[in-house]
């Protein structure tokens, strides 16, 4: 980090869209994130914004499948006031019906702002189809019908706060130009009175998929055709060589240096882009490969090339030098990413929400070093069978799906 006199204060809450087990309430973790900015009796929202403004702080929040994160970056000298403000709202949040309903409008606006983007709909469809029971079935934004019903869920919002916004379900990360002893002292002072008592939730387990699922999304506006394939894989485990093998595989088989990318994007030019990624999640999630295809007539060819890659990964071992290059890439990418207090705090925040421990960062790199060609083949055999995949295409309304 090269950011003198700056620090980031990250409050990590282990509640995300995975917690939304009750029907009709998808998207609520994200909506609630918005409500956290609606003040307390001691510090109404106008006062909260006024203080943050006076500190020149950058303050915001985000929600994902597994967690919600509230972050403030400001001068190191502002830490005490920020902790005072933040600990107040996490313990004493208080808002009325009108503020609640106005914020529901902002959330619908957030959904609307992205509604012209095909990717959003593509991934909504993929999740909806790939999951039958687990809450990863819906995106963090939630189903549109549930977003539209949010203004009617005031009481539930209070319950949501009581259930999940508890110190035994949260972690505080402070990164940057600070004195650690002083940070611990302030944390005890401001957060010490926060009352424990978080609820527990176990989202319904997703049964093993037993047959390939497919769908086509007809798109009203002009668009290049999209193809996404989602494959059920295991939950994040920092010590799992199998898990790291999938990360190596995603890079080796689908990054810009992969044979598939060269073939489809650079040589035959059937696709504008190909990308593969495996998200780190607390429950079994989807390894995804996505392609933006240049011509509708090429969609089937691209799909076949992609499935051919899946088969080859199970059959043929990757050369050791290729695995080494990916390991180097992942290591340097990680090192490069840690260049601001924000970047360090979010990395540790994610580690804490995933496993409860920051040591998982080092452990996952140890597991990465142990990945060998056989592990990658084993992962490919285990996960890339046709019956475990879901395939969604998107294209202009007039063009039928493949």
């Amino acid at each position, binding site marked *: 980090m090269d950011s003198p006199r700056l620090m980031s204060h990250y409050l990590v809450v282990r509640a995300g869209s995975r917690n939304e087990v009750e029907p009709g309430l998808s998207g609520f973790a994200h909506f609630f994130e918005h409500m956290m900015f609606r003040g307390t009796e001691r510090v109404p929202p106008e006062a909260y914004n006024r203080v943050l403004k006076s500190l020149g702080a950058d303050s915001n929040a985000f929600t994902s499948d597994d967690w919600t994160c509230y972050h403030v970056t400001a*001068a190191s000298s502002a830490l005490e006031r920020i902790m005072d403000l933040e600990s107040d709202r996490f313990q004493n949040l208080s808002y009325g019906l009108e503020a609640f309903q106005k914020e529901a409008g902002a959330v619908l606006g957030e959904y609307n702002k992205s509604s012209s983007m095909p990717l959003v709909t593509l991934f909504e469809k993929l999740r909806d189809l790939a999951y039958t029971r687990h809450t990863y079935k819906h995106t963090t934004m939630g189903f549109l019908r549930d977003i539209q019903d949010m203004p009617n869920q005031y009481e539930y919002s209070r319950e949501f706060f009581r259930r999940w916004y508890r110190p035994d379900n949260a972690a505080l990360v402070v990164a940057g130009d600070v004195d650690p002893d002083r940070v611990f002292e302030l944390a005890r002072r401001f957060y010490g009175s926060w009352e424990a008592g978080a609820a527990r939730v176990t989202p319904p387990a997703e049964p093993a998929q037993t047959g390939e699922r497919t769908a086509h999304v007809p798109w009203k506006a002009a668009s290049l055709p999209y193809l996404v394939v989602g494959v059920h894989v295991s939950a994040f485990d920092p010590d799992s060589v199998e898990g790291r093998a999938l990360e190596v595989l995603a890079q080796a088989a689908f990054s810009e240096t992969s044979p598939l990318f060269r073939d489809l994007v650079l040589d035959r030019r059937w696709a504008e882009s190909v990308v593969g990624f495996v998200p780190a999640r607390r429950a079994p999630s989807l390894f995804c490969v996505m392609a933006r295809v240049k011509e509708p007539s090429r969609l089937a060819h691209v799909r076949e090339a992609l499935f051919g890659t899946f088969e080859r990964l199970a059959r043929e071992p990757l050369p050791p030098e290729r695995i080494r290059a990916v390991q180097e890439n992942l290591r340097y990418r990680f090192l490069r990413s840690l260049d601001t207090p924000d970047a360090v705090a979010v990395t540790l925040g994610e580690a804490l929400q995933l496993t409860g421990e920051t040591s998982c960062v080092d452990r996952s790199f140890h597991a990465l070093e142990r990945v060998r060609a056989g592990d990658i083949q084993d992962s490919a055999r285990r996960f890339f069978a046709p019956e475990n995949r879901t395939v969604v295409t998107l294209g202009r309304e007039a063009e039928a799906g493949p």
Partner: protein
Amino acid sequence: MSLPAPKARRSPSLVPSPDSPLVSVRLLFHVGSVDDPPGKEGLAALTGALLAEGGSRGLTYKELLDSLYPMAASIDVHVDKDVTVLSGTVHRDNLDGYYDLLRQVVLTPRFDPTDFHRLQVDHVHHLENVLRAADDENLGKEALATMLYEEHPYGRPTIGTVQGIRSIRLDDVKSFHAARFTRDQLDLGIAGGYPAGFVERVQADLDELPSCPLPTESSFRLRSRPGIEVLLVTKPARAWAISIGFPIDVTRADDDYYPLLLANSYLGEHRTFHGVLMGKMRSDRGFNYGDYSYIESFLQEGGSPFPLPNIPRRTQFFSIWIRPIEARYAHFAIRQSLREVERLQREGMTAASFAATREFLLHYSRLWTQTASRRLGYEMDGRFYGRASLVDELEKRLPRMTVEQVNAAARRHLRWRDASVAVVADPEGAASFAEALRTDAPSPVSYDTGTRPEVLAEDREISAWPLEVSRVRMVRAEELFER
């Protein structure tokens, strides 16, 4: 209006940070889409793309990717209106290997026909299938630019036009590169934990670039018709993206820019919750996700709320970004946002608002340069305008600034009566919306939820506020950016 391009400087910008394990390099060429020849709109962007994704004489693009990959490094190219920037950051373990690749790309680009054809098709697709179809917020911003700058290159997307891109041949790229990417047009910047001798080595290598001073002049034809004009860009849309703006005649080179920056921060600082527009439109009324304002061309860097450095321009514009909003609120939102600009222009800021915003900017601006690479970018932008880095200028100027200066700058430059308004509107409803604008019909709003009496009282004033639009046009999205 005719403005010369700022001259490149020969001494490099340096931001050493000896303890940093990272090294960043920025090569800023004074060449951009303003230099596209007529009929070849998109040439600068395609040339830049071929530098980024085209390899070098000694390395195919695939080989370049293979070499960069283990370092987790990239050669990033951003083409803008007035500049093209090649940049990269690498761990110092890999500096020699990385720099060797960068040097090859800059001095001896490959310009392979296969890469050229691939990127040419991708750029056309970007206009046809992304900008016109799948990115309404940027469509609104680009549509606004067509209104502000009409026939001038600033008035079309940097990536070009569909016909312009299609007419470009590989030889055009080669000649454009040879004539424009010269050492006379280059500003070099290096930051981070670079070793002794590195700067001299890079300078010596870059001296191999040809010398060919080619001063660029650009005549700006700004819209001369007075009054508020509205362009409705029609396409299927569940919510309507709105961009409002007008040219201003100050940039970071001018003293008036800095008090105007403060006034603008008060009105609508990007991605913060305390701007007037954000507070009134999102927090009080729940209209949409966000509402911000700007006094220069603004791109956000990645997922952060901070501006991307190295997109300086010779002339700038004021703009308001109203994020997609339900059609039933669109007319009201245009009235409300322009009325706030009018109030700021007429009444100015109070002493208290001024003091709070000054305090904010003094601290917040320090967050803009959290990495050595960003400090370098700001430093180089300062040079473009003949000033220090924006952060340093603010540190020097804000403590001495007065509310009178701010209000005078707002009075002089916020010429909202000649605003252009671009609305990405669903075809169903666009015609009646146009008619309501033409007749200056009242635009009352009603809410599905409870609303404070003082907000409702202000609504009544806003809904009848005379907007007096002088001209309304409608165009289908697929007709924009064609030639």
